[in-house]
C-alpha cells in the first residue's frame, strides 16, 4: 500500500512557454521585463496577466537593451528577475549580460530560439548554441545554460535556473526553441522547495551598514586581472558541480546519439524505432550546455562504434563533442537548420551509422 498516488501533484496541460512562467512564479520571481518578439510572446503575455495578481511587477520595456538593464537594476537589489526573448532580442542583450557577469548579478534569461542569422525567421532553431554557451557579450564571460526537452523540464529547469543564478551570482539562460515553447503536453508542477540564499551584496540603501557598490569596472593595478581569475574560479566550480545530462537507452549501445532540447526529444522516438529493428543505439543528452558534460560524452563515446550528433543548425554543439573525445573518426554530424527533424529522418541517420541498408 502506498500513499504516493494521493500525494502526487496533479498533472496539468500546458505549453512550454506557460510552464516557464509557472516555474518562475513558483520560484518566487515577481519581476519580469520584456519586449515582444516571436515565438516567445506567450511568456510576456502570461506574466502581464499574472504579475499584478500576485504582487509582482510586469513592465514592457522599450527595447531588449532596456530590458536587460532594467533586470540589472532589479537584480542589484537582490530580487529575482526574469526575461524572455529570441534571436535578435538576445543579441541586443549581450552588453547587459556581460555587465551582469562582471558585476556578479543573478538573473534568468529565457531564449525561445528562432532561426537566424539576422531577422531569419520564426521557425525553431538551435543556431544560438554558440552564443548561449561560449559568450555573454564581451570579455571572459559565460552564462550557465540549461536546455529543456519537455514541458516538464521547461518548468523544473526554470526553477533550477533561479537557484543556480543565486548560488553563483551569474545570469542563467534557458535555451529552448519555437517547438519546445509552443508544444503542449501534460506535466507535474512539483512544489518549489529550495531555500533562497541571503544576499549580503544587494543594494537596498545603506541603512545601518556600510555602503555597497555593484560594479564591473576595476581600474587599480592588477584588480581586473584578479577579478577575471576569480570569475574563472567560479566557472571552474560550475563545470565541476553543475553538469547535468540524461543517459537514454544507453545499455549495450553500439551506436550513440548526442543531441539536446527538441532534437533529443525527437531522437528518443527514433531510438525506440531503431531498437525495435535491432539496432543497439542510445543517447547521451546534455541538459546543461554550459557546463557541457564533457566527461560523460567522452566516456559514452569510448564504448560505441559510431556517434551521431544531431542539431537544428549547421553544426555547433558537435564542436564540443569533438573537443570531448579523441575519436573524431567515430562522429557523424546531422544538421537541419531552421526546421525540426522528424523521427524518420533521425532513424535514417541511425541506420546510416549502423551500416543498415535502407
Amino acid at each position, binding site marked *: 500500500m502506498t500513499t504516493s498516488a494521493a500525494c502526487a501533484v496533479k498533472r496539468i496541460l500546458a505549453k512550454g512557454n506557460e510552464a516557464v512562467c509557472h516555474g518562475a512564479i513558483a520560484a518566487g520571481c515577481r519581476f519580469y521585463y520584456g519586449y515582444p518578439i516571436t515565438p516567445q510572446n506567450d511568456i510576456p503575455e502570461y506574466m502581464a496577466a499574472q504579475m499584478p495578481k500576485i504582487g509582482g*511587477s510586469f513592465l514592457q520595456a522599450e527595447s531588449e537593451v532596456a530590458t536587460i*538593464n532594467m533586470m540589472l*537594476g532589479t537584480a542589484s*537589489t537582490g530580487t529575482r528577475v526574469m526575461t524572455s526573448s529570441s534571436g535578435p532580442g538576445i543579441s541586443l542583450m549581450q552588453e547587459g549580460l556581460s555587465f551582469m557577469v562582471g558585476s556578479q548579478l543573478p538573473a534568468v534569461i529565457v531564449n525561445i530560439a528562432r532561426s537566424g542569422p539576422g531577422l531569419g525567421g520564426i521557425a525553431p532553431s538551435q543556431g544560438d548554441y554558440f552564443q548561449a554557451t561560449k559568450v555573454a557579450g564581451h570579455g571572459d564571460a559565460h552564462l550557465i545554460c540549461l536546455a529543456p526537452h519537455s514541458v516538464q523540464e521547461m518548468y523544473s529547469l526554470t526553477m533550477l535556473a533561479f537557484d543556480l543564478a543565486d548560488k553563483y551570482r551569474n545570469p542563467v539562460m534557458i535555451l529552448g526553441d519555437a517547438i519546445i515553447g509552443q508544444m503542449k503536453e501534460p506535466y507535474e508542477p512539483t512544489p518549489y522547495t529550495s531555500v533562497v540564499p541571503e544576499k549580503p551584496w544587494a543594494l*537596498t540603501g*545603506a541603512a545601518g551598514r556600510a*555602503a555597497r*557598490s555593484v*560594479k564591473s569596472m576595476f581600474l587599480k593595478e592588477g584588480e581586473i586581472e584578479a577579478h577575471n581569475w576569480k570569475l574563472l574560479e567560479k566557472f571552474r566550480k560550475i563545470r565541476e558541480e553543475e553538469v547535468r545530462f540524461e543517459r537514454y537507452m544507453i545499455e549495450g549501445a553500439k551506436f550513440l546519439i548526442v543531441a539536446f532540447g527538441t532534437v533529443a526529444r525527437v531522437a528518443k522516438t527514433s531510438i525506440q524505432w531503431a531498437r525495435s529493428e535491432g539496432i543497439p543505439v542510445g543517447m547521451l543528452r546534455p541538459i546543461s550546455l554550459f557546463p557541457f558534460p564533457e566527461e560523460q560524452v567522452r566516456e559514452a563515446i569510448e564504448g560505441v562504434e559510431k556517434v551521431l550528433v544531431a542539431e537544428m543548425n549547421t553544426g555547433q554543439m558537435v564542436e564540443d563533442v569533438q573537443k570531448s573525445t579523441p575519436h573524431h573518426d567515430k562522429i557523424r554530424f546531422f544538421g537541419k537548420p531552421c526546421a525540426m527533424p522528424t523521427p524518420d529522418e533521425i532513424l535514417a541517420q541511425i541506420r546510416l551509422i549502423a551500416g543498415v541498408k535502407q
Partner: protein
Amino acid sequence: MKNAAGKDMFSKLVYERPKTLLDRRLHYCPGCHHGTIHKIIAETIDELGQRENTVGIAPVGCAVLLYDYMDLDILEAPHGRAPALATGIRRALPDRVVFTYQGDGDLASIGMSEIIHAANRGENITVVFVNNTTYGMTGGQMAPTTMLGQKTTTSPYGRDFRTEGYPIRMAELLAGLEGVAYSARVTVSSPAHIRKAKEAVRKGFEMQLKGMRMGLSIIEILSTCPTNWGMKPLDAQKRVLGEMADYFPLGVFKEKKQADFE
C-alpha cells in the same frame, strides 16, 4: 578657551562636509564641476535625511567613481542605460530614493532611448544631467550637445550643422513629456548659481519622496571641461555663463504641483 564640557567657547560650526560625501581626494581636473555637483547632491540627500534610503547610479564617464566619493549604495551602469537600471531598482524597492548621474554623451546620445522612455513612463527617479558639451573621459569627442563651431577631437574643423546637426536641448525636450515632474537647467559657475542649482537638485529629489511621486525629474547642469576645451578654469566658467547659457537657457521648464494630481 574651552568651557567645562571641553567645547571651544569662541568657535561656532558654520560648515562641514556633508555625511553623504566621503572624505576622499577627488580625481577631477582643476576647474571641473563634478566636485561641486557631487557636493550639492550629497548636501541635498543629507538635508532630506535620505542617506540610508538612497541608491545612486554611477555613469560611464569621468564620474564613474561616484561610489568612491559618496557614502551610498551605488550601482554602476553601462553607458547610457542608467534610467533603465533606475527603473529596475525603483520598481523592486518603491520606497527608496533613486538617482542617476549622467553626462551628455551618456544621456543625450547612446542613452537617448532609455531617458525618453523612463521620462515618458514617469518613473519616480531623479536624473542629474551634467552637460559639458563633450565626452570628457574618452578624450573630448563631439557630443550631441557640442556647440556649433566647437572644435572637438572628432569635429576638428568645428561642429557643422550641415553634417552633424544641432546641439540638443534636453531639459526642454523632456519637459514636453507628460511623465516628467520637474525639468530645469542650472549651472554652478558662480556662488549664486550654485545656490540656485542646489534648489533645483532639492526640488528634483523631493519630487520622488513619499507623498509626491509625481514622475521623473531632470536637472541639467551646464558644466565645464577645461581640459578638453583647452581652456583655463576661469575662461571655462565664462564660457558656461556666456556662449553656453545663451544657447542652453537657464531656468525651470516644468514643475508639477501636488495639486495637479488631486
